[in-house]
């Protein structure tokens, strides 16, 4: 049996990168251990809580349930790549303005999922927000503020693109 490492190539936050991965490594382990990106973090380890959310080819995945070798040939985006230099993304601004976090552990996942949510529903109602974000848990329970932040972000995005 060969459990040899594999060399993979992918785009990480817009930059081409190469990594050596073992077959049993997860994407969140790869990001933390080889790229020092700690925004996606494993919490529930079951794909339920959303703290390890990253985007692969523009689609959200749970980094804890996604093998690192799957990233070969893809474009991976993490929370660290969301801001444009020092300019925060409208979703990040909205979360700060609405106070949509307490400890912040889940926030990077919520922000990435909110970006996806707003791509699918640019002006979401409460039901759409609750449904789309049902797979993200905030144990500080800032859910009312998160819903406000999502709506605020929708308004900000509209202003930016208008």
């Amino acid at each position, binding site marked *: 049996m060969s459990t040899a490492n*594999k060399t993979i190539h992918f785009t990480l936050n817009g930059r081409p990168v190469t990594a050596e991965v073992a*077959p*049993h490594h*997860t994407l969140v382990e790869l990001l933390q251990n080889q790229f020092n990106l700690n925004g996606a973090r494993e919490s529930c380890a*079951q794909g339920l809580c959303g703290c390890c959310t990253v985007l692969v080819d523009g689609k959200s995945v*749970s980094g804890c*349930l996604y093998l690192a070798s*799957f990233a070969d040939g893809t474009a991976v985006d993490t929370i660290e790549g969301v801001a444009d230099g020092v300019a925060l993304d409208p979703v990040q601004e909205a979360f700060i303005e609405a106070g949509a976090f307490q400890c912040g552990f889940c926030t990077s996942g919520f922000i990435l999922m909110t970006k996806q949510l707003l791509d699918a529903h640019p002006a979401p109602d409460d039901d759409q927000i609750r449904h789309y974000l*049902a*797979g993200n848990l905030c144990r500080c329970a800032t859910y009312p503020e998160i819903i406000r932040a999502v709506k605020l972000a929708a308004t900000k995005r509209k202003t930016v693109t208008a």
Partner: protein
Amino acid sequence: MIPFEMLEPKSLRDATALLDADDPTIRPLGGGTALMLMMKAGVFQPSRLVSLRSVEPRYSTITVNSDGSFNIGALAPLASLEHSADIHKHLPVITRTMQVLSNVRVRNVATIGGCLAHGDPHMDLPPVLISLGAKVRVIGPDSERTIPVADLLTGYYETQLAKNELIAELIIPPQNGKRSVYLKCTTRAAHDWPALGVAVSVAGNRDGLSEAHVVISAATERAQRVEQASALLVGPPANDKLFKDAGEAAASAVELIGDSQGSVPYKRQLVRVFVERALRQAIDGGITQ
């Protein structure tokens, strides 16, 4: 997780040759969402995984045929079914079921073939697919066969598949105006495994049903048709009394498993209530497919 070997064949037929009918530590991997949970928990310790992610792209496509039937590649992610306009038009029960199936991230990665091959009785789609009369086309190193989804699932995490057989595609027959509903009941948190899943599919109206399928999952060791309830429903006026009787018949017929989601008596009451409710919704909901 412990180290293992990972192979990435370029064809589905090649993948079957890399599996081993006699070695349970070798398994195929689709999206991997379910298997990853087992590996992380140490319940499954693979020596080799055969990734199906690089096989022919045709095994990821959704095709609607002129008669309204579907051929769906086993590697199609659940999200592709969720967002398919053809599925929404012809099989709206699948679109609606996706709204209550796990979460966006899992649906982006998990595959329809993996969902069926896993044999987990708690999953949402198997009962729905059974109620729609769906089949799977299965290939082995030198074989090919077609199995109704109802027969594929044989027990708790058990299927008819040999360890070197793979689901190639899902085949859903034309529904010809039948109405279908899936309901599930979770007893702790909304995202938890259901205590019960009920899928029904009926043809007809309040004057009488010409066809009825009642399927129970999650509370049982496998998703399964409840013939006693289905048979009762065909013929007489489809009134609330008939639906109540069908719920009662289903509750007496199925063998239930008591667990942390609920005791056997509790689940029996859930079956009564949810079968009746699902039938009423199918008839009155105006949801045609």
